[in-house]
């Protein structure tokens, strides 16, 4: 057997008290696609960042092609032929494709020659790998799939033989993802080594030759993909059987609580993000909105909850209109029983620098029970926070601790406790389990079902298709700002995937 393309021996890395990687050993054969799978926070990205010279390991050894090397900066990695496609693209948005490709790889102080060279080189790469992209297009005007292609081109332009892709499909539609996989297979045939980092089992099974599983900073197993199963990998990832379906009874939909009609929302640049969307939600049901991130789900819930202005359309809450076009005051909506767990808890749902008890009144700080005239009623606020800590098992149970010191799952519980305990009629929830540990996911899911069973209307937005499918009573699929389809809770992943990709209804039905 040939020398391993990459060999990692005993890699350790800590951030403060957190041990992101412990004693990692890994061997990647050349000319293969090697998957690394694990939950969010398992240490996959850290490990790859070490390999790419973004961080340095505290201890351990890296060998490329059998030779021990030190990688101190991305430059060292590039020099030994390692290229990386980051989860968040490392592109300068107002630069052209060409400028992005040459950035850092310019041959001399003046740009002219580099540009000429890059242009012809891009043509060659286009021929060899079918990676078409207009070299003079400005990045921010390209669709996400093409932006990712530019990232791959950047790596190839620098002569990468080993290509690391960090969660490459998170921002792609299923067909775009399939296209990416075809490209990766082609690269493999040309002799490149691919490392694919993901938390999606489907991708691992679809494309990799070998798969390594990480859990809580350690490498727990490496398997040949052909000789393993989804079930085995899932178990290895979480350390026990995954709960694929949440237990829930039959939905008993009641009266219409929230009614959205012809809602259209534009973003700050004037791009239409939500296009003529209509739907109703009844009490006692969970309506899930599925879709690839960036197809208008975020803007939709922001408009309904009064954070973002809509351009046209109307929203009725309990039969009375919400002023979504003018300034709907989120505070007033809360008084009317509309609670909102935002997608971004770090910057929107919480003030991380606040004490826990201060966050437990955010948005409800107008409530007379927390006030003494213009003064805050500190005792009432803290007692209230302590009650919620107990009820939602928030740890550590100290309401005076800074919120930044809580884990992701506990931070999310702080938000959920605040919004649910106000006994709202309608609950809008965005990405309820993003960056949340498994134990907390289960807790949060049960809470959402309990809300439903109490007769509340729940609008759930999530990019995790599994979550949508296991919680929702009805599923709406958004693509390019429109609701392109509605399905029941029994919808298959394949059929939702096609809808998410914007394939017309008729075709999807076939």
């Amino acid at each position, binding site marked *: 057997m040939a020398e391993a393309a990459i060999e990692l021996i005993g890699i350790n890395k800590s951030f403060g008290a957190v041990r992101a990687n412990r004693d990692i050993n890994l061997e990647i054969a050349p000319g293969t696609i090697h998957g690394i799978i694990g939950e969010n926070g398992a240490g996959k990205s850290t490990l790859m960042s070490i390999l790419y010279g973004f961080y340095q390991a505290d201890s351990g050894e890296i060998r490329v092609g059998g030779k021990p090397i030190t990688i101190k900066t991305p*430059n060292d990695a590039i020099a030994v032929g390692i290229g990386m496609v980051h989860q968040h693209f490392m592109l300068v*948005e107002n630069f052209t494709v060409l400028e992005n490709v040459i950035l850092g790889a310019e041959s001399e102080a003046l740009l002219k020659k580099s540009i000429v060279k890059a242009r012809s080189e891009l043509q060659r790469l286009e021929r060899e790998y079918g990676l078409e992209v207009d070299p003079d297009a400005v990045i921010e005007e390209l669709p996400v799939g093409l932006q990712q292609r530019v990232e791959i081109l950047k790596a190839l332009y620098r002569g990468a033989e080993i290509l690391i892709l960090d969660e490459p499909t998170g921002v792609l539609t299923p067909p775009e993802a399939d296209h990416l996989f075809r490209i990766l297979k082609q690269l493999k045939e040309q002799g490149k080594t691919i490392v694919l980092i993901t938390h999606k089992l489907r991708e691992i099974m679809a494309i990799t030759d070998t798969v390594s599983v990480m859990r809580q900073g350690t490498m727990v197993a490496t398997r040949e993909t052909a000789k393993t199963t989804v079930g085995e990998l899932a178990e290895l990832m979480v350390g026990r059987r995954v709960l694929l379906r949440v237990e829930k009874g039959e939905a008993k939909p009641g009266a219409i609580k929230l009614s959205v009609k012809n809602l259209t929302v534009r973003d700050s640049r004037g791009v239409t993000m939500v296009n003529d969307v209509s739907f109703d939600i009844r009490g006692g049901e969970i309506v899930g909105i599925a879709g690839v991130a960036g197809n208008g789900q975020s803007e939709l819930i922001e408009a309904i909850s009064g954070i973002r202005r809509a351009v046209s359309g109307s929203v009725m809450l309990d039969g009375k209109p919400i002023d979504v076009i003018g300034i709907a005051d989120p505070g007033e909506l809360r008084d009317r029983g509309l609670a909102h767990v935002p997608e971004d808890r770090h910057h929107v749902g919480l003030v991380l620098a606040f004490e826990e008890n201060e966050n437990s009144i955010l948005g409800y700080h107008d409530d007379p029970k927390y006030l003494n005239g213009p003064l805050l009623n500190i005792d009432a606020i803290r007692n209230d926070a302590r009650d919620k800590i107990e009820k939602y098992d928030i740890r550590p149970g100290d309401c005076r601790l800074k919120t930044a010191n809580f884990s992701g799952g506990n931070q999310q519980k702080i938000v959920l406790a605040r919004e649910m305990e106000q006994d709202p009629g309608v609950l809008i929830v965005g990405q309820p389990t993003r960056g949340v540990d498994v134990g907390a996911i289960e807790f949060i899911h049960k809470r959402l079902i309990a809300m439903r069973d109490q007769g509340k209307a729940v609008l759930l937005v999530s990019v995790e298709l599994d979550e949508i499918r296991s919680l929702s009573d009805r599923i709406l699929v958004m693509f390019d700002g429109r609701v392109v389809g509605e399905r029941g809770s029994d919808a298959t992943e394949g059929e939702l995937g096609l809808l998410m990709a914007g394939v017309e209804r008729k075709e999807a039905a076939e």
Partner: protein
Amino acid sequence: MDVLVQLIDATIRVSVPLLLACLAGLYSERAGIFDIGLEGKMLAGAFAGASAAAVTGSAWVGLGAAILTAVCFALVHGFASITHRGNQIVSGVAINFIAAGSTIILGQAWFKQGGRTPSLSGGGRFEAITLPGAEAVKDVPILGTIYSDILSGHSLLVYVAFLMVPFTWWVLFRTRFGLRLRAVGENPAAVDTAGISVAWLRYRAVICTGILTGIAGAYLSVAQNAGFVKDMTAGKGFIALAALIFAKWKPVPAMFACLLFGFLEAASIRFQGMAWPMIGKVPVQLMQALPYILTVILLAGFIGKAIPPRAGGVPYVKER
């Protein structure tokens, strides 16, 4: 006609420090480092330039000292905002105060003239340069007047300032350094992952800022005036910053923005105390406050909205 020629001539003179400071700010802000300390660096440069020129009798030594001093201040700003990821506004404000205080203290201690530096003359100043043939074409109507009375007869630094405009454009859009500079102000992570040191790149940008503010300072004390007077920058650094925003961080518009402010200042001096038809006599103070008022109006964005470099003002921290 004479009034117009004088006014344009004066506009050019007073625009120069604004222009140099504005371009200085452009390098820094394009690289993602806000710099409210242009004022202080200019002031420190002016003082160092005048002091060195007074002691050595050489304007060139003065210029060198001005640049060196301004670069040192720029490096302090870089140290705080790049190395230690401090608040860039706070750091800039600090530099303004340190410059304002130390120029007075050191000026008094060294020269004992109430914070002034000794008056410069001869080789201690950058004298006006007469362009070739200026005398000969003086009498040609319009074109001759423009050449001999407006274009000719400025000090070297005036020409340097205006040549810096195309030069800066060229650096920004035609060189590797410029490409990287613009990239680091928009997305430092992209620069970092491309194997380029964000810190070193930003330091170089900040040094460019220092050099240009140094020249601006030297112009004030060694070319336009014959020595340093305390607080002689009088808010020019802030006006330059406003011009930069108004020019949307682009070199050529920056020149026009600075000429506009320069014109206003020149006009307010030229027409001071003059009685206007209909309005009557305008208070001197209003004329003096005019550039500041205009700055506020421009910043209020009634004339187009400016989008700053995306990573501006944010220290670069590697993401986990």
